[in-house]
């Protein structure tokens, strides 16, 4: 089982490194990521959002909907933890019997 996992990991790593050969160099100011969408965020942030911090303006204004999704993720995780962990103190420990599944928690 560990051998299989090692093989899978090595194959995935080789595929990833093979893919990174064509990637833009580290720190390249002419990479597609730096030329396509983000110049507008950098140049127009003061006039469109009046915020000097570009990360804030993208997070809260241009892509604010992702921030709503992110807060929903935290809320989901919080309610999930309550759902999973809360236990009534008066319930006693049940024995596990997977051959005859019963349907109450």
């Amino acid at each position, binding site marked *: *089982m*560990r051998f299989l*996992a*090692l093989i*899978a*990991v*090595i194959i*995935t*790593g080789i595929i*990833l*490194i093979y893919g*990174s*050969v064509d*990637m*833009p*160099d*580290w*720190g*390249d*100011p002419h*990479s597609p*990521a*730096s030329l396509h*969408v*983000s*110049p507008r*965020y*950098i*140049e127009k*942030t*003061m006039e469109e959002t*009046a915020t*000097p*911090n*570009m*990360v804030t303006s*993208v*997070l809260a204004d241009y*892509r604010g909907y*992702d*921030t709503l*999704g*992110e807060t929903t*993720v*935290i809320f*989901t*995780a*919080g309610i*999930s*933890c309550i759902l*999973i*962990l809360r*236990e009534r103190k008066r319930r006693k420990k049940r024995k*596990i019997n*997977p051959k005859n599944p019963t349907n109450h928690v």
Partner: protein
Amino acid sequence: MFDLIISKYNYWIYIILMMIGFYAMIGKKNLVKKIIGMNIFQTAIILFFISTASKKGGTLPIIMHGHGAHAVKAASYINPLPHVLMLTAIVVMVSTLGVALAIVIQIYRRYNTLEENEILRLNK
């Protein structure tokens, strides 16, 4: 070959880190070790993304002495978009970690062990 390593070594370091985390997730038998592996894997992905945002000679993506009307050149600031995406990804990572640990606590309450072999044996 040498200039390939010089220009792309950041990606390679993060890929090796990702693979360490990935191996821990699928190869280890202890549940907590799997969670640690998951954390390493997701952190390495976040660092990988951030490394695509750097620019030679660029500074932090905050306009100093803002509120004055002066021209802003895109090449003098690093790319803010991957940082924003990774803020969301960090939050998602922490939430998944929280839910995973809650499930592990519930498993421990029922089986009193955290080794996968023991749990599979007790389940039979």
